[in-house]
């Protein structure tokens, strides 16, 4: 045990702001470059598009920030998203389409409950049965996908009621619901991470769980509840996703965990745990959204896009590493 460990707990205070500014600088540089290269980049509509396109990954990344702060990982988020939208879809779709016809609100409720339950199972496996988060959520990744396929017989649930599409395509006084939801979740998440016991314990779990235990805190319930949060936010992301694609596919969300993890790490979190920053995560999500959008505006082909996105993710993290070491 090294004595320097506790100084890594820095969810609040001034130093995170310096650290956070690096990804932000990278984002602004990127936006500047795209504005120079494409006259169409810096328009209200285009930036709005980027925000909506990023919102489901943004929601998942809020939960992932907590999980990664504890030194854990949640690989199941994409599958939990798929399971949640299938549960939501089956609850709200009319009986002719194989649903229960219970309406939009009941469907949203069923989706969120499903996500929280799946997260709860992850949490129990990790905090009670002491499985490593990687293994527990890897298992859930497969189980949730399997249940989604069983429930829907592998077919997309069609005829989602019009009202449910609002989360993906509607807006409140010009602000898309999807973006409002993301912003609210990130603000709330930032408050919890920086200024509540749950947030402080999350970082403490990641830097030195034993010390937390010795100070009289039972870590299990705190840790477990963060996986419930991650499941719940994956389900919320699913409801936005459902609104955008207008049917519930059991095959949705493949690979979303990697986008969310990349965003969190670009934002300055450490995969070893002990630190995480909600503002950084938001910037990380935005950085990837801006890249995907800008490269298309510049007519860069799909293969080059993959290459550039990979390079930028690694560079952004390296930049941060050099700054902080």
């Amino acid at each position: 045990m090294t004595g320097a460990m506790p100084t890594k707990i820095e969810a609040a205070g001034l130093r995170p702001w310096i650290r956070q500014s690096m990804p932000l600088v990278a984002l602004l540089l990127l936006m500047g470059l795209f504005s120079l290269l494409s006259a169409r980049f810096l328009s209200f509509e285009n930036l709005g598009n980027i925000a909506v396109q990023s919102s489901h990954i943004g929601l998942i990344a809020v939960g992932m920030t907590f999980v990664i702060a504890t030194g854990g990982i949640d690989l199941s988020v994409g599958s939990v998203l798929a399971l949640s939208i299938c549960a939501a879809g089956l609850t709200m779709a009319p009986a002719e389409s194989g649903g229960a016809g219970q309406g939009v609100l009941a469907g949203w409720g069923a989706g969120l409950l499903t996500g929280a339950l799946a997260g709860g199972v992850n949490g129990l496996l990790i905090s009670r049965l002491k499985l490593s988060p990687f293994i527990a959520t890897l298992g859930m990744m497969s189980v949730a996908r399997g249940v989604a396929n069983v429930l829907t017989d592998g077919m997309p649930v069609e005829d989602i009621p019009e009202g449910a599409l609002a989360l993906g395509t509607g807006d409140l006084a010009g602000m898309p619901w999807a973006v409002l939801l993301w912003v609210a979740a990130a603000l709330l998440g930032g408050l919890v991470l920086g200024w509540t016991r749950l947030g402080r314990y999350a970082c403490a779990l990641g830097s030195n769980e034993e010390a937390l235990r010795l100070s009289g805190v039972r870590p299990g319930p705190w840790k477990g509840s963060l996986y419930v949060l991650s499941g719940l936010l994956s389900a919320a992301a699913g409801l936005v996703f459902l609104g955008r694609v207008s049917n519930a596919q059991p095959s949705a969300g493949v690979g979303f965990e990697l986008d969310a993890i990349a965003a969190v790490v670009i934002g300055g979190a450490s995969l070893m745990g002990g630190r995480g920053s909600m503002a950084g995560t938001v910037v990380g999500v935005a950085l990837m959204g801006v890249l995907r959008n800008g490269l298309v505006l510049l007519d860069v082909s799909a293969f080059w896009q993959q290459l550039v996105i990979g390079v930028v993710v690694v560079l952004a993290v390296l930049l941060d590493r050099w700054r902080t070491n």
Partner: protein
Amino acid sequence: MRSWLNRTMALGLLAAIALSAGAIEPAGAVGARVAVIGKGIGGEYWSAVRKGATRAGRDLGLKVTYQGPPTETDVAAQIALLENLIQSGVDAIAISPCNARSLNRTVRKAMAAGIKVVTLDSDTTDKDRLSYIGTDNAEAGAMAAREALRLVPEGSVVAMVTGVLGAQNLQERRTGFTRAAKGKLRLLAAQPDNGDKARAVEVAENILTAHPEVTLFFTDNAISGPGVGQALKTRGKAGKVKLVSMDVTPDLQGLLDQGVASVLVAQQPEKMGELAVRALKDALAGKRIPGRIDTGVRVVRRKDS
């Protein structure tokens, strides 16, 4: 030292993007900008679409770029891609929707923005586009049934293994097959493998156990075919129970060469890419284009069959 490193890396980041943009966008490019959006970016099938589209673009003096979501199931990424292309002010788009319904709204948005849009390989349900360029799937299925009738006598029992139940194009192929085989072949109910080759092997093995009277398998896609072929090999039924499959892939070609598969009915993805770009060129020139362009199929038989 540290700040030097920082600056170098920031510059590196900028250079990577500027270079990649520069590499793809030659200065002073002439002609209209056309985007071709596949269901995916990897794989032989989409490479062929891209090849055909790029060649047509070169011949016609259009600037063609190929785009696609990271996986064929990432519908949201494909919608985002389409939105970004609308923003980029592209002149024409050919798209193969990952999901026939989900893309309706954004395709309408592109058309409303004055962009010429066609679908290729598969269509949207609302059909709010200028044209659909692709395989006549019912005809492809019928063709496969006619080939099956050359291989086995009338009245034979035929099993069908499909990918995902409810996929529009596969459904049409099976319907075409069923219609052409009506009264001539006895068809068992189609069994799905959900796009999983290992599952296709199991399904085929179960069919062989439950229905030893089966003399021919029809598989309507490039995953079920190799799966069934594998099962026929391990059960020692290769060549005895015939296999007719849609698509030609290295996997399926290998099975044909080994005598496990007898006939392959190939779609023509390269032609789809090419004809889509040609149709878009006509549309941009103000010409009327047909609402449906059939890219045809190619029948590949084993030499001795």
